[in-house]
């Protein structure tokens, strides 16, 4: 019996979010507040307010249970959007029924992902996290994107209306828009009735970016062993200086076929060594789950650097460890910042241990770098050691340390070779303000 009731309630979306309109909330509030003094029928007339509000609620509930609509809903979504930035798109709603529909509202219902609840849990205080009732799935989903009710114009039989929708994605990643909920208010305007129309589509939400001050990252051009053959027309890799005899191990594509044909023995092209600027952008993904917001800020900072560093005549290597160790290069026509943002959109935290794998990755390619930006979530001995080793290798280093909000900005550099001015501490929630002092 209980299951049937639950199923009935679920089918009619009685406990759906947005079920009560603002007016409905007011009437419900009046009902609740008049209930207690209403117990004493002699002293006040609060019981009459209570009775009237109960009457209004009953009528509204009865009317809201009866709502039918046959609609076709289509969206025209952008491919990329940015976390925290509102985006707009058009939604077309077509009436397939046999009645004119008026006064409808529409709202998006993003699909929950299991990850949402975990991330949401990470954002909660440890004391609240331990409680089973402290983690609400619906709240977790709501944190993913914000969408308000949009009014739909009159829908004649067979006619359509276009609605300009606005959404604000809450966080980076993939936003699954699973269904569209079409709502109708009851006659008194207290309750909404819903009809869900499934139309799964997805949008990639790029990380939020900050405006960065000019980052002076000194460093000489470094020799890129063997050149960057992929560098096509921009680089100096095409500039071969001479021909010489083939030596074991030379790549096949360096063979100068015409000379071989002419002389009858293999001759290879000798290239001028490649020297150009190549920056490393290292994103730390190792921290405890409760610092989810700090990690998000670190990703945003990495995304900001990826966009701001001019890569027409330099390269930028993004290095981080997710499911595996990643090194992704942009610049000099190799790839665009958009692609790096797309990668950052799906960067995930890797737990508290395993920083060594990132350190190994960075040190492996350190010799090819001319400067390095390290975006750290902590300032402990493994991170200090990595910084020290990079400095010892002669690399100019800038460390951006993301800390939880409310923590002090003063941090002991620890590494004697690191200029304190090159250790920039930013706090979650006030990153832009803290970056203001960056030199």
């Amino acid at each position: 019996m209980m299951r049937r009731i639950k199923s009935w309630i679920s089918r009619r979306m009685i406990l759906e979010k947005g079920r009560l309109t603002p007016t409905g909330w007011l009437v419900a509030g009046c009902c609740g507040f008049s209930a207690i003094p209403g117990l004493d029928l002699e002293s006040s007339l609060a019981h009459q307010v209570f009775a009237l509000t109960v009457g209004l609620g009953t009528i509204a509930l009865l009317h809201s249970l009866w709502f039918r609509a046959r609609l076709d809903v289509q969206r025209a979504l952008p491919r990329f959007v940015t976390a925290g930035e509102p985006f707009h798109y058009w939604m077309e709603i077509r009436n397939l029924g046999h009645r004119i529909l008026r006064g409808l509202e529409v709202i998006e219902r993003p699909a929950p992902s299991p990850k949402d609840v975990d991330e949401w849990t990470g954002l909660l205080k440890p004391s609240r996290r331990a409680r089973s009732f402290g983690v609400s799935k619906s709240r977790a989903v709501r944190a993913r994107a914000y969408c308000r009710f949009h009014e739909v114009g009159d829908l004649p039989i067979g006619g359509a209306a276009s609605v300009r929708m606005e959404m604000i994605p809450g966080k980076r990643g993939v936003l699954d828009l699973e269904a569209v909920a079409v709502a109708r208010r009851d006659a008194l305007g207290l309750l909404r009735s819903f009809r869900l129309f499934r139309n799964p589509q997805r949008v990639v939400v790029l990380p939020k970016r900050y405006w960065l001050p000019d980052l002076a990252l000194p460093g000489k051009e470094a020799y890129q062993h063997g050149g960057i053959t992929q560098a096509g027309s921009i680089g100096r890799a095409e500039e071969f200086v001479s021909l010489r005899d083939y030596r074991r191990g030379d790549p096949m594509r360096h063979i100068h076929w015409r000379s071989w044909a002419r002389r009858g023995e293999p001759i290879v092209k000798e290239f001028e060594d490649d020297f150009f600027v190549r920056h490393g952008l290292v994103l730390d993904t190792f921290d405890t789950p409760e610092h989810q917001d700090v990690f998000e800020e670190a990703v945003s900072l990495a995304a900001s650097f990826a966009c701001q560093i001019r890569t027409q005549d330099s390269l930028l290597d993004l290095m981080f460890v997710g499911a595996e160790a990643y090194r992704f290069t942009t610049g000099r026509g190799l790839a665009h910042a958009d692609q790096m943002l797309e990668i950052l959109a799906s960067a995930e935290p890797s737990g508290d241990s395993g920083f060594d794998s990132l350190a190994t990755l960075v040190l492996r390619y350190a010799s090819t770098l001319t400067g390095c930006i390290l975006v750290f979530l902590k300032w402990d001995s493994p991170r200090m050691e990595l910084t020290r080793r990079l400095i010892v290798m002669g690399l100019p280093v800038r460390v951006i340390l993301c800390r939880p909000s409310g923590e002090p900005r003063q941090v002991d550099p620890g590494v004697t070779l690191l200029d304190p001015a090159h250790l920039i501490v930013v706090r979650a929630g006030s990153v832009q303000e803290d970056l203001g002092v960056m030199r």
Partner: protein
Amino acid sequence: MNLPPFCLGAALLFWGWTCNWMQAAVPLALLLESARFVPTRWEFTTQDFHRIWTFCVLIVLAAALFSVSTGRSMLDSGEVGSGGGSGVATAYAIRFFQWWPMIFAPFVLAFFFSRQRYLPLSVFSWLVRNSADLFPRPRTFPGRQVAPDAVYFGLVLGAAAMTSLKSPFFLPLLALLTGWALWASRSRSVPRWVFVLMLLGACFIGAAGVQGMRQLQAWVSRFDDLLMQRLSGGRFDPLESRTQLGAIALHKGSSRIALRLFTTNAMPPELVRSASYDTFSSPVWMLGTRGDKDREHIKWLPLSAEQDGMTWVLGKEGDSLERNFVRIAQFASGSRTLLSLPLGALVLSNLNAQKVSWTRYGAVRAEDSDQLLDFVVSYQAGSNVDREPTARDLHISQDERPHIEALAARLQLAQRRAVSFRDPLRVVRGHFLSSFKYSLRPEIPPGGNLRRTPLFHFLEISKEGHCEYFATASCLLLRAAGIHARYVTGYSVQEAAGANQYLVRHRHAHAWVIYWSPEERRWFDFDTTPPDWVRSENQQAAVWEPALDVFSRLWFEFSLWRAGRSELARGLTMALMVILAGFLVRLFIKARRQKRSVLPGDLGWQRRMLGLDSEYYRIESSFAKQGLGRRVEETAFSWAKRIQARLTADQQKSLHEIQELHYRLRFDPAGVSEVQRKELAERVQRWMSLPAR
């Protein structure tokens, strides 16, 4: 949801009508609705609204504290309900809520005369303002908005319902106003007539609900009466007193304080009476006999209050007798409280009760009184207001008659009565004092011996018992001697608690006798219980009694303060006001300090980034004081050209260099180095010290 025009004004008039406060409702409604015609608007920020809201909430808290502590509504001149008994608390609450539209009027006025149509929920809720940890939510999501006019409308209707006005128009008018407010936010999906039909349906359900609730309350009330009758045992009943004669032991009550007596001299009344009885049918003392016609006219007679409404006169004073005064404080027990008064009480003053009734047998009760009854009794020795003796005051039941008469004959009471009226009293008292002892666990007659009543066993065999034995035996013996006597229950006053202050505990409950003196035509107390009963009772005291007394004292003082009768009340109320004022001042100072600290902190980095902290502006501002400031449309160089007549050659040259540095600081994407920045500051400093033309 914003309200249709004039809807809120109408609601305020409705509130004024139900609460009888039209003088407040009309101006407020006019003020609020005038906002539709007055084009002037104030620029209130969210912070301002939050501050006004906090102020209103503080007023609500202050009003609540004032109302609870003094029993009066803060904005009202009179006492709440002039004594409401069990309904006093409800009356406080009702009067308190009635004033909410006035208390929140400053906030709504500010809203109506601002440009905002909605306000963020954070203005109202501390929880929302500090909910980052509780409900993490991306900062870029818009916060929840509230329409304060709609909420205020609900509040006004709620306050309008806080009245006991019995009008058939209340519900229809309430429904009309609600419908008017809902009209604006009704659904467009249905025609208007459907809205009206559904509203009527809701009204019908509401009206039916009201009827249903009334019937339910009537049913609950009947059940409640039955329950209360079951639970109310143990108190003095003015019509009957079931004694513990023949019971194994007497439980006289706890150490809880029943009364506090304050006297002007060192002599309090020894006994305070709650009720007296004239007929004994073992083991019950009662007034008349059950089913007796006479018993019906022992009715509660209402007393009429004097002009001050708090003085109640029981009888006229005898001129020749000395008047005594005692202040008695006791807590009300339900809506009807039986008072304990010294015999001979004539005037009760400062007694705040809706109604005071009494019987001619000495029982006085206060109805619908304050929680704490604190009144002064004027009394004289002996009572001339009790009903004069009747034949029942000489009656001895058949069961007790043989042995009472036998004992009276042994003590020769009849003969002594013939000689002197007072002689039998002395003999009876002497008889009990000489050969009887006090016991809470008297020996009881063995079962099966029907001839031996408990009283006989007490008088002839065990010679030990508690006050009920002594009082009953004395009363019957006096009657056997031809003296009119009645059995009385009440308390013995025996425990001093400081100067002129006495405590009466429940375990001090006592029984004794009053007799009629034909010479003085008055009733007098006559207590034959041996004095050692006091010691016996005190042995019953619990170890933790002193600690309980401290709490009891504190509660008593708090109750006095609430009733506005404590000397501390005025001082504490003033202190409360000072604390609130201090809190308000602190709130504003804090807000201002925050404002000061926020600006540079928030914008400082931007100012630095944009070079707006350049020292060059000192030069401009020094000229601005002379009316030569740079105009908005002027560049720095053109301004320098304009004022060059006022500058020396050195100044002109130096200013040009400073301006170039300043421009680099402001507009060069590469910015300036630390050294150049320092140089700019030094140059400006030097320039300011150059001699002017």
